[in-house]
């Protein structure tokens, strides 16, 4: 297989893992205001305090894969989106330290609650905005570093959409990791968020095909739509299944507490696939393909064994880490 294509897939995998894993833990922060009591917020925080660090590592991994395999794209994207990236980093700093300090605080706890919640929400919003402005394309003129091209109605919409999606993942995660009141509340929130997320996916998709000629052609020219139609259809089917599980819970019939989370993850996978279909083979749409941005073979070959050995290993021990803390949050209430 072509080396550059392999790294394109690795990059896609890293981004997807990040969106899925940090997605649900950023989502916990977004849902925070909907859980009021101190012990409920404790529960939320505890449910992710042992995994958030590992989840965020996928963001760093995505960054360094881009840096190592496609330096030109890394340089282009990070400098063009200077402000939204910096804002995202500031937000991630606040939410990251909140994990350490919230449990050790007495009087300052409300501040850490705000830091965690606002940090998570802003980080998610910035990521959505980045995604939206990438889809719209980066202006080729020299001013791209100084203009505010990433702040458009479309990118604001994608910002909120990503927030909704992350919150959905989080609600489904909580549904799996809790009992009683918190579980019932998460099911209710998850149902609402499912509707919002699907609505957002529809609007973003329609807006994209309406405004981006090349993506429209990719989807609708010839028989393409026939080949690609499973994507939207499966998306709807999965959404309905998730709804059913969540709804059955509220009338006391559901025993599949983990299933909605996997449905939500599948929704993300499908949305992500739709995006890649539209943009392939570009890293910076209409400007830089992954072939053009690729590092020389000497670098790609050097990193190859590392990826092949360590990525499966990382997945294995990450899975083990989740297994150690399997079950409901109440069952491992302890600090260190």
């Amino acid at each position, binding site marked *: 297989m072509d080396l550059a294509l392999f790294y394109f897939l690795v990059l896609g995998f890293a981004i997807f893992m990040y969106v899925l894993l940090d997605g649900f833990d950023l989502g916990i922060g977004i849902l925070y205001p909907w859980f009021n009591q101190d012990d409920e917020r404790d529960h939320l925080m505890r449910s992710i*305090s*042992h*995994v958030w*660090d*590992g989840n*965020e*590592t996928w963001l*760093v*991994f995505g*960054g*360094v*894969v881009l*840096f*190592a*395999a496609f*330096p*030109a794209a*890394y*340089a*282009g*994207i*990070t*400098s063009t989106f*200077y*402000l939204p*990236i*910096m804002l995202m*980093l*500031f937000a*991630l*700093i*606040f939410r*990251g*330290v909140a*994990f*350490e*300090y919230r449990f*050790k*605080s007495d009087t300052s706890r409300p501040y850490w609650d705000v830091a965690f919640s606002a940090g998570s929400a802003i980080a998610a919003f910035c990521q959505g905005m980045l995604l939206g402005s990438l889809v719209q394309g980066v202006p080729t003129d020299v001013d791209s*570093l*100084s203009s505010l091209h990433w702040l458009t109605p479309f990118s604001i919409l994608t910002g909120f959409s990503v927030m909704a999606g992350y919150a959905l993942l989080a609600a489904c995660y909580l549904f799996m990791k809790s009992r009683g009141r918190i579980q019932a509340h998460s099911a209710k929130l998850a149902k609402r968020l499912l509707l919002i997320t699907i609505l957002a996916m529809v609007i973003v998709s329609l807006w994209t095909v309406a405004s981006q000629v090349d993506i429209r052609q990719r989807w609708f020219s010839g028989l393409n739509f026939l080949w690609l139609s499973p994507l939207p259809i499966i998306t709807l089917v999965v959404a309905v299944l998730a709804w059913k599980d969540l709804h059955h819970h509220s009338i006391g019939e559901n025993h599949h507490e983990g299933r909605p989370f996997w449905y939500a993850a599948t929704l993300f996978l499908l949305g992500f696939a739709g995006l890649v279909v539209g943009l392939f083979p570009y890293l910076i749409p209409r400007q830089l393909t992954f072939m053009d941005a690729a*590092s*020389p073979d*000497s*670098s790609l070959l*050097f*990193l190859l064994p*590392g*990826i092949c050995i*360590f*990525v499966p290993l*990382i997945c294995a*021990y990450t899975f083990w*880490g989740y297994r*150690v*803390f399997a079950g409901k949050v109440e069952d*491992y209430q*302890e*600090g*260190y």
Partner: protein
Amino acid sequence: MDLDVAILSRIQFAFTVSFHIIFPSITIGLATLIAIWEGLWLKTHNPYYLQLAKFWIKPFAITFGMGVVSGIVLSYEFGTNFSKFSEITGAVLGPLMAYEVLTAFFMEAGFLGVMLFGWQRVGRKLHFFSTLVVMTGTWISAFWIIAANSWMQTPTGYKIINGKFEVESWMEVIFNPSMPYRLTHMVVASLITATFVVAGISAYYLLKKKNIPFAKKGLSMCMWFALVLTPLQAWIGDMHGLNVQEHQPTKLAAMEGIWPAEEANVPLLLFAMPNMKTESNDYEVGIPNLGSLILTHSWDGAVQGLKAVPPEDRPNVPLVFWSFRVMVGIGFGMMGIAVLALLLRRKGRLFENKPFLALVTLFTPMGVIAVLAGWYVVEIGRQPWIVYNLVRTSEIVSPLPPERVLFTLIMFVIIYSLLIGVYLYFMRKLIKKGPPSMAALEQQLIGMKAPGYALAWVKTLQHKELQTNEPQSNESQNKAQGDK
């Protein structure tokens, strides 16, 4: 006012990297100490080792957390502020950083959850294994980062094609001429830093007459470590210096304040104010020929001075000169404390001598200061080059609007000042709270998953506690430690 985006970006990077380096330089060493204590506890069942591990894991966790959040910033700043740099060196530095994330970052993050929260979820051996993995992760992380940094100092194994670096030999890139010295110097530095953090807090407890057996154990162990590590560090530092002289003579000249293009009979300057305008030192006080002896290991050896290169190729001499003296001064101070501890120990007054305890307490943050000073020598000394003798720092900055960089710089200063305040506040809180009591450790039933273990462990604990309550056995314990 005219703002220069290059200067602003450099200040921002210097500020964020200085902030970041504080935390890994503590955690690399502290993870190692925690692993040693946990291992000793498993072997000897002496509950004080467990108490040490369980207490220090808390400062470790908040320090590690600070390191993580400030490190993520750095991994993106290469691109955001220095887009040209990441474009031309991406093929060399990118894979090194990617290997760091693959072989270290993920491992630390993956096992940290178990190390911190898993005491009752996994058996004690598996827990110890997790601690070891986290420790190894911090070392491997240092390995790759230092490899990347050293390559920028002493680049080898590359060719330049169309203005971009490509790798000819990865072995030469990773094990570049300065890398082994830099890596050992840094790892030992962080072991010493953590050693003095633990020693300082233990001495503080002894001064306040709190947590006495716990503090004695901590101080005693750390003074043994310091006695071994500080002379070792001086030796490594000397070899590192020779290596700098060979590969980066201009940097060495700045460290020593040597101006003539070539100078024999170099004095060792104790005090001087290097003056970049007059190209000489003001108020020079030095020991004749000692500089030559240290630098060339011969009495009248000659070295290259600053005037051998044009002024625009010289770093900021006073900064490098003084940072170097701060680092070395602290290093010798630490060595002095270790020797003093040995003398006091022989007189049996290690835990009673108040001025000594106060001095050790004062040295709690000195390791961090020395590490920072050391990095200023390394990084400022390399200027004006970003890749030594190949790429100038001024050529690789992203052409951003200066106000934008100024805005983020101000944000970083505000946020990081807030964070360091919060960090110190919570450290103080943890230290005031002190280690978990033996009763608390007992209740936690460490290693619940190993059946039958917990009961037996509580019995040993009670037995030990009885023993340590008698003053005589306390002494025999100290002796046993001395034998180690």
